[in-house]
């Protein structure tokens, strides 16, 4: 691989992604962890741009960074004392580290040019592709159409809408429900707290 501009950009985004992720799992302060999570997710969005998936990059910024992390930050601020806890990791972290490292080695071994060591000639050829075919110009249109086409991805799309509805109803019920007491059922929800979950 030559050192091209693209390669440098790739390395920068990868470093942001992985560095941010490491901080998320290591840092003591939860609020900082959430900010690092934003950084890491931003790096992933950059990788999506490099992979010619601008729609997903945009969705990453809007959904992940704009919605999910903000939600997480809300939750962190609504549960204040947790940021003051001193012991943030379980004591058996060496076991977890060994597990994660083992899995990483396994994944790298099977998905990089090292994979040819496994005996199947040319297996890693799939993974060393450097010049894939161009993305069709109407790729984005195709993505949109495929989601509402009964012959393609309509069913999961509909099921996902059902899932979102259920998640919404359930979440609202959990954090903002008047009272569990059946006798108080008819009473107005005067005692209910305002919904703070965002």
């Amino acid at each position: 691989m030559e050192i091209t501009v693209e390669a440098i950009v790739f390395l920068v985004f990868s470093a942001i992604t992985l560095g941010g992720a490491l901080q998320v799992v290591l840092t003591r302060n939860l609020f900082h962890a959430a900010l690092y999570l934003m950084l890491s997710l931003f790096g992933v969005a950059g990788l999506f741009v490099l992979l010619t998936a601008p729609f997903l990059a945009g969705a990453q910024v809007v959904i992940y960074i704009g919605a999910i992390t903000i939600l997480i930050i809300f939750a962190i601020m609504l549960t204040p004392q947790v940021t003051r806890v001193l012991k943030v990791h379980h004591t058996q972290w060496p076991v977890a580290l060994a597990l994660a490292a083992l899995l990483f080695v396994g994944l790298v071994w099977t998905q990089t040019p090292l994979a040819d060591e496994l005996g199947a000639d040319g297996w890693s050829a799939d993974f060393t592709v450097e010049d894939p075919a161009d993305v069709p110009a109407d790729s984005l249109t195709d993505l949109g159409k495929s989601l509402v086409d009964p012959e393609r991805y309509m069913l999961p799309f509909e099921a996902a809408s059902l899932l979102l509805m259920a998640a919404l109803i359930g979440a609202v019920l959990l954090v903002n429900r008047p009272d569990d007491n059946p006798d108080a059922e008819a009473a107005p929800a005067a005692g209910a707290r305002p919904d703070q979950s965002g």
Partner: protein
Amino acid sequence: MVPLWMYLVVAAGLFCIGLFGVLTRRNAIAILMSIELMLNAVNINLVAFWRYQTPDKIGGQVFAAFVFVVAAAEAVVGLALILAIYRRRRTVIAEDVDMLKW
């Protein structure tokens, strides 16, 4: 372009960092954040495979888009449960939720 395997290594790294976080963090919100990292690793994998192997078939991108949707639903539900617990017990340290405990 950068060879495909480099993206896969980044995804594998991100996944394993997330895995480590889930197994070691004691706070439920921190565990949730680590899970989000793992889901992002999945998405890097999906998009990279799509781009390098079958850019003419949209499957990989559709899959990644669904991962977004589910991640959002999971985050909402998870945080709602966390807040419900916090209101009663003033803590979200997942003492009992030790992921490696037998």
